[in-house]
C-alpha cells in the first residue's frame, strides 16, 4: 500500500501553485521580454557603440586643455598649436595671416561621443612659432592618407594661396557635426 501522506516535494509544488497564477507568470515574462527589447533604445552614450575601433588618439583624447596635443580637436593637427603662440583655436597670432586653404579632419568629441569636422587652417607669413612647451608641437594623423593623396595629407604646408608660404602655426576651428 502506498503511503497516503504527501511528500515534501508535493507540499512545495502545491504551495507554489496556491501562491502564484499562470497570468502573473505570463505578465512577468512579457515585461522582461519587452524591457529587454526597449533597453537599447534608451538615450545612453554611444561611445562604446562605435562601428570601428577607437584610434590611439581617440582613446586618450581630453576636452579640458586646448593648449595640448591630446585635446580632442587636435586629432589630425600637424604643427604648432596657435593658442601657444598668442593666437587661439580660430585666430592667428599677431603678424601672421590665415591661409585661404585649409586641411579638414574629423575628430571624436569624448564628451558626447560624436564626430565633428575640424578645419586646420595654417597661419602663415611669419617664421615657425617655437613655444617651449613640448605639448604644443603636434603630429596627429587620424584619417590622414599617404602623401600621394595630398588633399588628404597634413604633412604639407597649407599656406598655398597666401602671399607667403612661411608657416607659423595651425588653428583648429570647429565647423560642425559630421554625418
Amino acid at each position, binding site marked *: 500500500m502506498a503511503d497516503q501522506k504527501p511528500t515534501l516535494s508535493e507540499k512545495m509544488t502545491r504551495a507554489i501553485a496556491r501562491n502564484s497564477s499562470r497570468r502573473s507568470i505570463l505578465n512577468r515574462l512579457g515585461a522582461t521580454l519587452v524591457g529587454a527589447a526597449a533597453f537599447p533604445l534608451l538615450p545612453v552614450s554611444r561611445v562604446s557603440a562605435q562601428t570601428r575601433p577607437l584610434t590611439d588618439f581617440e582613446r586618450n583624447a581630453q*576636452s579640458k586643455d586646448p593648449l595640448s596635443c591630446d585635446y580632442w580637436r587636435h586629432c589630425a593637427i600637424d604643427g604648432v598649436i596657435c593658442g601657444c603662440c*598668442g*593666437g587661439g583655436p*580660430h*585666430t*592667428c*597670432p*599677431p*603678424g*601672421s*595671416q*590665415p591661409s*585661404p*586653404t*585649409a*586641411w*579638414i*579632419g*574629423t575628430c571624436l*568629441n569624448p*564628451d*558626447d561621443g*560624436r564626430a*565633428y*569636422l575640424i*578645419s586646420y*587652417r595654417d597661419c602663415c607669413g611669419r617664421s615657425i612659432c617655437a613655444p617651449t612647451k613640448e605639448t604644443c608641437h603636434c603630429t596627429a594623423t587620424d584619417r590622414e*592618407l599617404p602623401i600621394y593623396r595630398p*588633399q*588628404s595629407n597634413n604633412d604639407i604646408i*597649407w599656406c*598655398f*594661396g*597666401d602671399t607667403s608660404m612661411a608657416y607659423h602655426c595651425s*588653428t583648429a*576651428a*570647429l*565647423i*560642425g*557635426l*559630421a*554625418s
Partner: protein
Amino acid sequence: MWRASAIGVVFGALALAGASGAADAASGSTPSPIPLGASRYLESCGGCHGITGTSAKSEIPVLRDQVGRFVCTDEGRAYLVRLPNVAFAAMDDHTLAQAMNYMVFSLGGSSVPKGARPYSPQEVAALRQRPLKATDLASMRSSVLGRALAACQEQGR
C-alpha cells in the same frame, strides 16, 4: 597692422556651424549634423575649394555660383565626376553622388541651369570608371568649360 590681423581673423568656418560652440559646452544642446553630401564635401574637397566654395581664387577654381555651368553639357557634367580627385575619392557611389549634388546644386547656386537633374549613384558609378587621363587638365578644363558656357547661352542661361 598686426592688430587687424590678430583680432579680425575669425574664420568663416564658424558661420556654417551655427551652434558650433555647443560641442565644447558641457550643458549645451547638441547641434544638428551637417547633411551627408555637405559633410563629405567639406572633409574631402572643402579644404582647398573652401567651406563656402571659394578660397584662393588665383590657384583653385571657384565653385560658388560657378560650377553649375558645367552641367549645361553632358560632357561637362561627366567631366566633374571624371576628375581624378573626384573619381578616386574615398567614398562609395551613393555618398559621392550626394557630395556632387551638394557641390553642384547648393554651392553652384545661380549658375545651375534650370531643369538640371541631380547625379544618381548609378551615374556616378559609371563615370568614375572612366577617370580623366589628360596630362594637361587646365587646358582640358578650359575647352570643356568653353563648350558648356556656349551651351548655357543657347539654353538661355
